[in-house]
């Protein structure tokens, strides 16, 4: 992404937010349509619980609505949005966790359907197994590592923007992302190897 296109994006989202602050609800709708799914998945991957993810996701947007008049066109809107999301997530994890919160949808997923030698997988099923495995591995990552990975994948933030969002240095973010990618890559490689072995058998 060139600097010019980046600036245009910043300007567009920020201007939409400012237009909403002035009373243009259609501007908010446009912003919401653009950012809603990545933000939702950001929470869903972090929490692993749909109900909790929806609750936190809703909390972010309500804060955005509430803080519309305080928004300043200084930072990229996406950075501002995910900074709010990060703070809500941190607040949530600081709270004493209930059993319901701890229970995740990912835990209900079979760890690795491809491990069962009795199961013969089709091509589409194999892809689905990879995806499930990736979700599981993502869930197993430390929160800090999974967060920077999701900020990169879902929000499309650069290392500098991620650092700004999570309040850490760029090097720290880089390190966390390196570990996250390595682990996920390793899990996918292992899955692929197993599949190959299964195929040879």
């Amino acid at each position, binding site marked *: 992404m060139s600097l010019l296109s980046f600036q245009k994006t910043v300007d567009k989202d920020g201007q939409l937010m400012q237009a909403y602050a002035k009373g*243009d609800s259609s501007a*908010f709708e446009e912003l*919401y349509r653009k950012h809603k799914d990545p933000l939702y*998945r950001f929470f869903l991957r972090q929490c692993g619980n749909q109900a909790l993810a929806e609750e936190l996701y809703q909390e972010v*947007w*309500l804060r955005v609505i509430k803080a519309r008049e305080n928004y300043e066109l200084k930072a990229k809107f996406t950075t501002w949005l995910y900074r709010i999301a990060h703070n809500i997530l941190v607040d949530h994890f600081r709270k004493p966790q209930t059993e319901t919160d701890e229970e995740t949808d990912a835990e209900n997923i079979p760890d690795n359907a491809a491990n069962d030698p009795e199961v013969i997988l089709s091509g589409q099923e194999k892809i689905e197994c990879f995806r499930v495995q*990736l979700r599981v591995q993502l869930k197993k990552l430390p929160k800090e590592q999974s967060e920077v990975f999701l900020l990169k994948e879902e929000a499309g933030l650069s290392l500098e923007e991620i650092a700004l969002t999570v309040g850490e240095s760029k090097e720290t973010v880089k390190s966390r*992302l390196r570990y996250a990618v390595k682990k996920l890559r390793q899990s*996918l490689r292992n899955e692929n190897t197993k599949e190959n072995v299964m195929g040879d058998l």
Partner: protein
Amino acid sequence: MKDSDDKILQDYLKGNDEVSATYQSLQDEKSSVALDEFILRAARDAVTDKPIKQKRIPAQAYSVAASICVAVLAGALFLNNESELTRNEIEAFTIPVLDMPVSEMLSADDAVAALQSDTDANINTGAVAEALDLNANRIALPAPQFQIEVAESLEETATGAAFSTNDNMVEAETAMRRVEEVIVTAEVRETEELEARSSEELLELVETADLSQAIQFPGYRQNTNTWLAEIQRLTQAGNAMELAEERRLFAQNYPNIDIDSALIEL
């Protein structure tokens, strides 16, 4: 090892990594429609709530009510001051005869008669009244009676207030001062009025050359002719002591006039 990790990261950041591609294929989860509608409705309500926020009618109403209260208080203060002015005007109107004793108020004729038999300034007052056939009752009674009442009420207010709180002490002192001022002003104005009337009547008498009456006028010393007429009368009457006193006073006041020569010319 570290170099290979960096390479993995660099490949990932460039988008040349299976992890990113696999993850992107996972992006089929979306927020529920109900949740979307709820958030969008909240956003619209927040914007349409703006006028409600701006309403702040209670605060504005309070400010308007406060302004009205201030205006009413200002009006009340103005009316109060107006009533104070009215009272002062009444006091000023009744000033001329305020200092007259109650005995004079009730029997002005007797007081005038008593003054006639007195000497000096008192004689003047009585003589003026008699010479001009002044109806003391007609002049003094209506206003003085009212003035007395005003003064007495003021004194009562001051005295009564003096027994109450410290704040009332100040009011009492103020009221007492007001009474004193009224009395002093009345004395001054009464004196000035009487002297003016005396002078006017004396001048009339002189002009009519009725000196026989003029000598009885208490203000005879204000005019050389009337004063000389009085000296002449005393000379003819053989009242040596009074004559000597009058001649001495005349010489003192008019050292450039020879009394004997003036008497001849008179």
